[in-house]
């Protein structure tokens, strides 16, 4: 077992979701056996690597927090969330022209752009087909798809602009936040934990931003690309409060010296970023304590996500 897989499984075990994730992996394996021969390999590749499964774990935790039935009853919902999540990763990698994802070549690099885009469509189609009889799930998956699309456009439109931390919150809330929100709603089968899911998503997004700047591999990397593209990450939003950094951030070129200076300025604000993330984590804990019958799985999840920026 690789170090990354062991670390990921360790987090899953600490959150008490080992049995459910095993069922989810079985479900994915069974699904892959039945997909079209033409796309089986790229689809298996898209779901391969060392996924951390934070989204299904969130769904299972929210299920346990409000229901007395076993979380295994929610495996089908976790399965469709995983398909949707992987679709978003395949599309992200095409847009970012990324070379690697989870330590292996992206679907686009391995199989080409056409196959990557068709595989992403296949993932969405099968996600909806899997829950076709469940109107609640269909409605929320549709919401997720709409919001992810709009969030991608929002994030791109707002690049290289003199914005602030609250603008970053809006982007994070619609991008990663929407995915975790839907996980919470599907897991609880109600709106009760929607806000909790939203905050965990924002926290995850922020930890990803900070982890990238610390040069961590834990969340997939990508910090250099964000600086190059002028993406408003949390450290960037804090650093561009300084007018001199802001001026450099707004420029649109590949000047290596400018990008290196920006990277340095962003890293200088990591402690401030950690404080912002502590605030988000506290809000998520307050939501869990207030609205879950059993908040323990939700509090444990917040603690695990919070550590991602420091690993």
């Amino acid at each position, binding site marked *: 077992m690789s170090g990354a897989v062991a670390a990921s499984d360790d987090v899953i075990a600490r959150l008490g979701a080992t049995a459910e994730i095993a069922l989810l992996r079985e479900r994915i394996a069974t699904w892959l056996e039945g997909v079209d021969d033409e796309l089986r390999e790229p689809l298996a590749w898209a779901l391969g690597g060392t996924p951390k499964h934070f989204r299904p774990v969130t769904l299972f935790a929210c299920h346990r927090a409000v229901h007395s039935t076993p979380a295994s009853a929610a495996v089908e919902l976790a399965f469709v969330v995983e398909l949707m999540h992987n679709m978003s990763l395949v599309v992200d990698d095409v847009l970012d022209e990324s070379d690697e994802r989870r330590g292996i070549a992206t679907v686009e690099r391995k199989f080409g752009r056409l196959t990557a885009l068709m595989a992403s469509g296949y993932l969405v189609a099968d996600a909806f087909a899997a829950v076709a009889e469940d109107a609640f799930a269909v409605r929320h998956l549709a919401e997720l798809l709409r919001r992810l699309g709009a969030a991608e456009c929002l994030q791109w439109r707002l690049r290289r602009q003199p914005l*602030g*931390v*609250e603008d970053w*919150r809006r982007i994070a809330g619609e991008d990663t936040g929407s995915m975790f929100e839907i996980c919470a709603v599907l897991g609880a089968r109600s709106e009760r934990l929607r*806000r909790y899911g939203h905050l965990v998503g924002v926290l995850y997004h922020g930890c990803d931003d900070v982890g990238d700047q610390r040069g961590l591999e834990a969340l997939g990397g990508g910090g250099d690309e964000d600086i190059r593209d002028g993406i408003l990450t949390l450290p960037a*939003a804090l650093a*561009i*409060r*300084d*007018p001199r950094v*802001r001026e450099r951030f707004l420029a649109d070129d590949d000047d290596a010296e400018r990008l290196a200076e920006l990277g340095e300025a962003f890293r200088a604000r990591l402690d401030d970023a950690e404080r912002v993330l502590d605030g988000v984590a506290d*809000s998520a804990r*307050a*939501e869990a304590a*207030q*609205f879950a019958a059993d908040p323990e799985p939700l509090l444990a999840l917040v603690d695990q996500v919070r550590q991602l920026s420091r690993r």
Partner: protein
Amino acid sequence: MVAVGSVVTSAAAFRVGVSWLELWVQRTPPLTRLALTAALGGAEGGTAEATFRDDLIALGGEAVERSYRELRRGVDDFDRFTRRDEEEPGVRPHRPYRVKL
């Protein structure tokens, strides 16, 4: 139910007020310092102005979030206090006539 509704609404309004007060007491001094630094200008003026904007919006956002949380808590309390302990099972048959399938 009207009495429970009144008590729950008053309690929610009180909690919103207390949480707002707590928030303003915590955040006003640093905001005031930032506003002064921004007003004085100089090398730190620009950074202070941007930080003030961020922190002021964050204060507004958090006030809204706390209010929303307390209001939802009030609705939950109303639901809990007015729910009958045990729902009696309906008298059989639940459907008085068969539905044609």
